[in-house]
């Protein structure tokens, strides 16, 4: 009986605790909820991204005094890259610290879940280089932003890069290109673009799916051995990347003909393969290493000059840098909104306006410490992507270095596809695309 009473009391206490969870704060900072994954099969990639974002938000508070004097607050929630837990996290965080104003889902699956919620909750989504590509059409997706560039743009940039390596786009004819992709919404993203471009340039595309989490790829690489492709694109994430690079090395595929998406090109992906990974390439939309002014500032303000401690927090790694760029663009969107609405805490709707009118030029990038580190970005009402160019980086066994100039995507092919996909989404979900000429 006593045992049962204890159970009963425990249950009641538990339910009461769940009910009491979301707490509201009195003072209002600018709140960025952080959906991160520091555990689970995707943790090796989740940790550096999260650290980069965290460090830049903290740097904004310490170096720049917040966003024009408004303190930036962050709170992390562990998603394990699991869509359900991610949505639970979002629901838990969105009411805290005076309300979330901008969410970076950091997972394509979670982004898909949040896109319909964004206009209702008035929390804009910045899915930087991931998520639903069609969201680049701002007329159908007013609350979702995926600048500086999307998967489809990147896929077209890859084809352009391969074309230039082969000595001209006309030489693509008859070439065999294999795509090894994560069997999920994320991995399937590039397929329509690559198929469309295959029709134009006459290369032969083979798409090979790898199921979550991607540790088992023997069958896939057996197929590749039989196929003997000229180029391989890798659209993986987490442990799948490491395995794919090791498998490619095992079949002695020439590494410099093996190109990963920007989520398949971090230190964690190549180091396990050792020397065999030398020559492996990947896309990116910012520079490499701890070379920018912002890195010096972080070292000084956050780590007190302790480079060892900073390295433990992935300082200067590819995904850490991407976290920095992502956080910087979010904070800049708040500042853009403040220029219109005044220097106070911005609401979600105001941050949305800031994102849509974001215009970060070379000068501003230099002021923020990102001079020459990434490209200027200009977002418009129609175009939430910015159609940004892509760089190719290469692993030399110890570090990444850039091996290409900025490659422009094939916009005349990609943009109509985006508009078509957005129109299909609008039709299915009863959305009337807004008229951008009426926006201010």
């Amino acid at each position, binding site marked *: *009986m006593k045992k049962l009473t204890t159970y009963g009391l425990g249950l009641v206490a538990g339910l009461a605790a769940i009910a009491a969870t979301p707490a509201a704060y009195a003072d209002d900072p600018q709140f960025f909820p952080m959906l*991160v994954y520091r555990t689970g099969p995707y943790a090796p990639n989740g940790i550096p991204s999260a650290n980069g974002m965290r460090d830049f938000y903290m740097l904004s508070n310490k170096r720049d005094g917040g966003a024009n004097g408004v303190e930036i607050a962050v709170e992390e929630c562990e998603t*394990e890259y699991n869509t359900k837990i991610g*949505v639970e996290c979002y629901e838990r965080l969105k*009411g805290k610290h005076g309300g979330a104003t901008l969410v970076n889902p950091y997972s394509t699956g979670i982004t898909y879940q949040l896109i319909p*919620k964004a206009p209702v909750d008035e929390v804009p989504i910045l899915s930087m280089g991931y998520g639903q*590509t069609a969201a680049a059409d701002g007329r159908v997706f007013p609350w979702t932003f995926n600048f500086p560039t999307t998967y489809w743009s990147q896929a077209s940039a890859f084809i352009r890069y391969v074309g230039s390596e082969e000595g001209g786009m006309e030489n693509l004819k008859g070439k065999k290109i294999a795509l090894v992709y994560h069997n*999920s919404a994320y991995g399937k993203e590039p397929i329509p673009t690559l198929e469309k471009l295959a029709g134009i340039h006459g290369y032969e595309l083979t798409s090979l799916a790898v199921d979550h989490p991607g540790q088992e790829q023997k069958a896939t690489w057996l197929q590749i051995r039989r196929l003997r492709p000229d180029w391989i694109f890798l659209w993986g994430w987490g442990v799948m990347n490491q395995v794919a690079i090791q498998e490619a090395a095992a079949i002695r595929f020439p590494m410099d003909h093996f190109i990963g998406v920007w989520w398949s090109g971090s230190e964690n992906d190549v180091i396990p393969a050792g020397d065999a990974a030398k020559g492996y390439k990947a896309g990116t939309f910012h520079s490499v290493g701890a070379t920018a002014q912002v890195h010096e500032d972080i070292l000084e303000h956050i780590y007190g000059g302790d480079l060892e401690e900073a390295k433990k927090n992935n300082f200067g790694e590819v995904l850490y840098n991407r976290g920095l760029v992502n956080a910087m663009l979010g904070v800049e969107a708040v500042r853009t909104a403040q220029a219109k609405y005044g220097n106070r805490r911005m609401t979600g709707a105001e941050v949305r306006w800031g994102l849509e009118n974001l215009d970060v030029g070379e000068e501003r990038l230099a002021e923020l410490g990102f001079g020459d580190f990434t490209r200027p970005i200009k977002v418009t009402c129609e175009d939430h992507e910015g159609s940004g160019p892509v760089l190719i980086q290469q692993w030399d066994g110890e570090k990444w270095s850039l091996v290409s100039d900025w490659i422009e995507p094939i916009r005349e092919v990609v943009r109509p596809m985006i508009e078509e996909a957005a129109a299909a989404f609008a039709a*299915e979900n009863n959305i009337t695309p807004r008229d951008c000429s009426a926006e201010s």
Partner: protein
Amino acid sequence: MIYREAGQFKTSYGADQAMLPIAQDRWAVGAAVAVMLIVVPSIANEYMLQAVLIPFLILSLAAIGLNLLTGYAGQLSLGTAAFMAVGGYMAYKFTTAFPGLNLLVVFILSGVCAAGVGLVFGIPSLRIKGFYLAVATLAAQFFLNWTFNKVPWFYNYNSSGTITMPPRELFGVMAAGPEATAETRYFIALVVVIVLTVVAKNLVRGRVGRSWMAIRDMDIAAEIIGFRPYQTKLLAFAISSFYCGVAGAMYLCLYLGSAESEAYSIDLSFEVLFMVIIGGLGSLLGSFLGAAFIVLLPIFLTNAPQLAGFHMPIDVQKHIELMVFGGLIVWFLIVEPRGLARLWQIAKEKLRRWPFPY
């Protein structure tokens, strides 16, 4: 003293065969339903409804479905999530093909489709039993998940393979899609779960349920006294899959909003199986208790350290949560292998003698 049926006389067959023969039980269940229907929506906030109670209700329904098959008919299944996926994908197909179709009709049609698929995958149960049957249903899990990923017809040929529930109304109120309030979705889930629970309760205490239990307890003896194993087992598969299909449809329409086939992965099958085992095999109450344990406890463990004032790195917190959760499962199974429902039964027996136990 308070929980005692002395003095409650049954004067008709109807009263004797009532679903809840003891008056106190009727009041307790009535009060619970009233609280869920009236009190909870008025005090619970959106987080509580959306992230805690709606998944709890939907997974309870899936657990009831599996409990009918595994707990009552004795057929072990690892394909629950696959049958839920059939429900989810068919709900999407029905509602996009016929936008005017009533949402409740969509749920029922999805359940019927899942029942059909369940029938097909139930055929091996005539020849194989126990663990071998579990492996056969595991094939259903992998095959169906693969199908929903591979055949673009199921996700209307969109590029990402994700199904998104379009906005839908039910009796003039937004019921699905982003503009539907958490309260509305909670109400729909609750009503469907209550109705289907009453149906299940009457199934298991009637002829059908008794034939299932006879097959479960000893199939040869059941066959000798006149139950046809083929029809009985297939019926169990069909009805169980119907419940799972409806749960899967609600999982998409009322909870997730958009999903890819990964949402109905093998992990979900195991989760529902754990609910049934921890809650209690062969008990409808156990399905609810098990779902509460599996859904609510991790959320409570995630929130507990912050409420208690501890601020630790979230990865450490997550690891502690996983360890505590795993430990609790093992502890419960050692303390009460027959599940939480059995604990409740013991409590009721003790309550009868309270406060003068002998």
